[in-house]
Structures are given as C-alpha cells and as structure tokens.
C-alpha cells in the first residue's frame, strides 16, 4: 500500500500551519510556500490520475484498519480527475491572488487557502460518509475565513448569510447521517452500497428520508434552485480569487451527488426510485433557467457572474439527473468547463473592478488595461454562454445529445437552448455597457489614471482561458475519458470489492478480541 493517496490531504494540512506559525509576517515566504505546495499538489494529482486511469481503484486504509471499521480514502477515475482539476485551478487562482495583491489585504490568506484545498481534496478522495461531512466542514470553515478576507461591511454581511446557510446544511447532513447509521449500521460508502441493497422493501421509511436529506444537503452545496439563495451574495462579495476558487466548491456538491447516487442509491434501486427524475431534473432545469435569467437581470457584474455560476451548475445537474452513462459523461465534461469558465469570469470581473469605482453595469470612463480585459471578458463570456468555438458549446451539445429520447427531452431542450439565448443577451448587454459605452464617456479633467492590473493577473486569467481552449481542442480525448469514468461509476462492483475485501487490521477476528 503506497501512501500517495493521502498526500493531497496531508500536504496542505502540514503546509497551512507552517505558514501560520513560521511565516506569519513574511508575505514573500508565504507566497513561495503556497505556490510550491500547489505545484507539488499538481504533480501528485497528476500521478494519482495516471495511476487510476487504467481502471484501478486506489485504496488507502488509515491506520491499516479494514474498511467498515476504519476510514478509507478511495481514488478512482472520478476522484483523481477532480483532484487534478482542483489543483490546476488552485495554481491559477493563486497566481492571480499574488499578482493582484489580494493575499496581502488581510491576514492568513495562504494558510486558509491551503486548508481550503485540504478540505476540497479530502472530500473528493474520502470513501466514508462521515469523513465526507468532516471534510465538508474543513472546507467550509476555511471558506468562511477566505470569504470575509480583507473585511468590509458588505462582505461581512454576506459572510453571515453564507455561514448561516451552510451551518443549516451541515445540520441537515448530520440528520441524514444519523438516519443512515440507524438504518444500516455503517457509514462506509462501499459497505452502504451492499447493505442498502438488502433493505426490505416494506421497511424503507428511514432510508428514504436519509436519501432525500442527503440530496438536499448536496443540492445546497451545488446551489440548486430553490436552495441557491446563499450563492449570489456570497460569491459576489467574496474577494475575486476566492470566488474563483469557490467555482470548484459547487462542484463538490455535484461530485457528492454523482458518487452517492451511483454507488449507494443507484437509479434502479426501488428505495429511491423517482428521486432523480421526478425531483432532481425539474429542479436542475429550474436552476438553469433562473441562473440565466439572473444573468440578464443583474445590475452588477459580480452578481451577474454569480448567477451564471448557478446557471452552469443547473446545466451540470440537468446532465447528472439523467443518470445515464452518457449523461454523467457529459456532466463531467461540463463540470471541467464550468469550473474553468466560472473562475476566469470572476478573475475578469476583478480586472474590470481595478480602476473603476464599482462593478455597477453603468458606463464609466475607460480605464488602463481595458482592452485586454475586454478581450478576456469576451472570450470567457463566449465560454460561459456556450457559443462556438469554445468548450461550453461542445458541453451543451453533449448534454442535449444525452437528453435525446428521455421523457423530459422537450423540456430539457427548450430550457437549455432558451437559457443559452438569455445568457447571451445578458452577457452581451454587460459587455457593451462596460467596454463599448465606456468609450463615449470622457474622463473627468482632474482624473488621475489608476495603474493597470499587473501583467501576471492577465497571465492567470489567460492561462485559464488557454486551459479552456485545450479542453475544446482535446474534447475527443477528454470526452472518451469522461465516458470511461461514467462506465466505471455504473459498474461499482470493483470499487466495492476493493474497499470491502482489502484486508487490514480487524478484517479477521483474532483471539483475544
């Protein structure tokens, strides 16, 4: 058993206290360690993704305890690719945070950033539901700190809403876990998959409640309408690099739904039948529609981007809610796209903010560096709306294709295409007000031109766009890999047997115990 699988959790967990304790007053040292840590994470995540790419299920038993008794970390194709995505996103976000000086506007940015990474990566890797709860809390408590980084009244107020909403979500999560444990006597995902299958059809009240509660919790994380109310304010008020990192946090909810509802409560299980097609799909369509209408209605650029995140999460959830291999494959392709596009939009919104008084969608005099910013906004808006030639277009095609022939196909097609049109109008309006009408406003006579954003800020945003372009160019390879991931998810037997049957301490009862 190699120890590499726990490295994505241990490395940030060691780095963060080191940054707090040893480098508290030296922003330069913090930056170096943070960047080096994230680069190492990318290398480790790449190695793990490579190791899992041939279909092996990597398993790490903490303390060598066998599966139902000890906590396990499991790395299959889905987990490792999400870990890799997080690490790559973190690098660009970090470059932006450093170059724009956001990390120096308050205390402990880098330490909180590392703790945030630890929570996200742990949530992707864990194979135990209670451990998933703990990692959710780790990523949430770090996100509370990051969310109110650099202070300000508006930000604190939004932070209060964000924390309150997530505390209620955590409480629901605990209720769900209690119900699951009371019904099955285990919280290990693979063990649960075996035991839920054995529950008698007449005694499913408890497990039904638990399945619905669990779906609610993950839907809160994934900002699914009508549980999305925490997102617009908090993402709009969060510091830009933090909001860009948060683009992966909604995907944690999507990941958890994929994992739990393919492994523990698959669609052919009578206990939870109807949950995904009666409830999840309409809610996903609704959040797609509401998110994109919000894009059109927003009066500020940061809120516009936040609503586009809700819309693109709706898109992801539409595809997940189909719960077919094609649907999951399309969803995974779209998750990568939506993470990168959402992150780059938040970074571009911050570039727009530099030199302007605010982000209200009103014409204001053009500022230094506006040309490149406008270009970046144009490209990232194309990506988010799903216009050709970028990957959003291909992602939407895949989703539409996966929805072809399903019961709600007409609704899905109408909402996906209609919301695309609305979002195009919304982004076009925002872009023309921000960048074109600005040309007709003369700057005041005594205006002192503000400094343009740092070059590395543009590099960070441009790097994410390059990744989007690569995601488009290599769409064939990426999609065949996501298809392989989906195939692995719908054949959970190797996953379950790897987790449950790998020997460890306590796997055989011995004398004296």
């Amino acid at each position, binding site marked *: 058993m190699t120890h590499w699988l726990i490295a994505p959790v241990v490395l940030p967990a060691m780095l963060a206290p080191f940054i707090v304790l040893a480098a508290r007053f030296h922003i330069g040292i913090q930056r170096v360690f943070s960047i080096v840590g994230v680069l190492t994470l990318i290398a480790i995540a790449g190695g793990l993704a490579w190791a899992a790419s041939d279909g092996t299920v990597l398993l790490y038993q903490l303390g060598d305890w066998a599966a139902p008794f000890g906590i396990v970390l499991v790395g299959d194709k889905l987990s490792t690719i999400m870990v890799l995505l997080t690490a790559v996103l973190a690098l660009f976000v970090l470059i932006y945070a450093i170059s724009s000086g956001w990390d120096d506007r308050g205390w402990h940015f880098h330490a909180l950033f590392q703790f945030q990474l630890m929570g996200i990566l742990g949530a992707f890797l864990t194979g135990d539901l209670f451990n998933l709860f703990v990692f959710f809390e780790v990523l949430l408590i770090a996100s509370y700190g990051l969310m109110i980084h*650099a202070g300000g009244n508006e930000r604190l107020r939004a932070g*209060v809403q964000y*924390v*309150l909403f997530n*505390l209620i979500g955590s*409480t629901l999560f605990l209720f769900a*876990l209690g119900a699951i*444990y009371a019904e099955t006597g285990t919280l290990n995902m693979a063990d649960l998959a075996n035991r839920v299958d054995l529950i008698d059809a007449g005694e499913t009240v408890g497990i039904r409640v638990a399945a619905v509660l669990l779906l609610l919790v993950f839907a809160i994380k994934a900002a699914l309408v009508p549980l999305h109310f925490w997102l617009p304010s908090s993402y709009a008020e969060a510091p830009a690099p933090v909001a860009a990192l948060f683009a992966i946090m909604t995907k944690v909810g999507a990941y958890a739904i994929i994992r739990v509802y393919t492994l523990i409560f698959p669609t052919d299980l009578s206990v939870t039948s109807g949950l995904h097609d009666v409830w999840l799909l309409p809610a996903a369509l609704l959040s797609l529609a509401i998110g994109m209408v919000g894009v059109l209605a927003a009066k500020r650029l940061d809120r516009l981007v936040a609503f586009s995140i809700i819309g693109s999460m709706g898109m992801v959830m539409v595809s997940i809610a189909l719960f077919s291999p094609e649907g999951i494959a399309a969803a995974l392709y779209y998750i990568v796209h939506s993470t990168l596009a959402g992150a780059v939009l938040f970074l571009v919104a911050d570039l727009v903010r530099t030199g302007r008084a605010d982000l209200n969608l009103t014409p204001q005099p053009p500022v230094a560096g506006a040309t490149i910013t406008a270009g970046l906004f144009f490209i990232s808006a194309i990506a988010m709306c799903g216009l050709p030639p970028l990957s959003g277009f291909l992602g939407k095609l895949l989703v539409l294709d996966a929805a072809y022939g399903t019961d709600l196909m007409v609704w899905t097609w109408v909402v996906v295409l209609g919301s695309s049109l609305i979002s195009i109008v919304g982004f076009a309006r925002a872009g023309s007000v921000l960048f074109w009408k600005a040309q007709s406003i003369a700057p005041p006579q005594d205006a002192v031109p503000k400094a343009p954003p740092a070059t590395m800020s543009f590099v960070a945003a441009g790097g994410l766009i390059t990744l989007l372009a690569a995601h488009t160019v290599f769409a064939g390879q990426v999609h065949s890999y996501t298809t392989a991931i989906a195939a692995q998810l719908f054949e959970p037997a190797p996953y379950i047997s790897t987790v449950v049957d790998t020997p460890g301490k306590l796997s055989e009862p011995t004398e004296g115990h």
Partner: protein
Amino acid sequence: MELILASAIGIMTAAGIYLVLRLRTFPVILGISLLTYAVNVFLFTSGRARVGAPPVLRDDITTYTDPLPQALVLTAIVISFGMTAVIVMISLGAFLGSDDDQVNDQPDPPQDRSEGSS
C-alpha cells in the same frame, strides 16, 4: 426513555427551525444552536437507546451499546461548537460595522460601495 428522547429531539428541532426563520442574527444563531443540540441527541440515539450498558467491550459483559454514535456525536459537538463561535464572531463584526443585525439583504444597497481594499 424513547418518548423523552424523541420529544426532546422534536421540540428542539421545531424551536430551532422557528428561530432560524427569524430576521435578526441573534435568534437565528440561537436557532442553529438548538438544531445542533437536536442533531447531537439524534445521532446519539441512532445506535439505539439503551440504558446502563457500557460502550466499551470488556470480558464478562454481554450487553453493551454501540460506541460509534458516541464518537460521531463527539465530532459533531466539536465541529458545531467551533462553527457557532465563528458565526458569532462574524455576525458581531457585521453588526458593529454596519450597525444593523438583519440577516437578509438590504433592498437598496448604497451606491458608493467600498472596494474592499481594507
């Protein structure tokens, strides 16, 4: 025993939900605390309520209670306690900063928002 536990969980949850739906921060935090108390008791009973049975395996003890929920409750208590402390601090900061403890968004945000550059 079952009646006491079940009604305690029910009453605390009901009161917690009522308080969570209030407009001001302080009752909402109280409501969340009540909800976490309720969920702690709920987790505790998820391993079956049993009186006078030890949670530790020993020789010559035949009835024992499930130790895992107790470990889960311990984790849940610590986490919810820490989270409550965090939310109290953040909401105190928000209250002192804006002299207002409403939870919801204000209908008309001021136009000259600070850039957040502390």
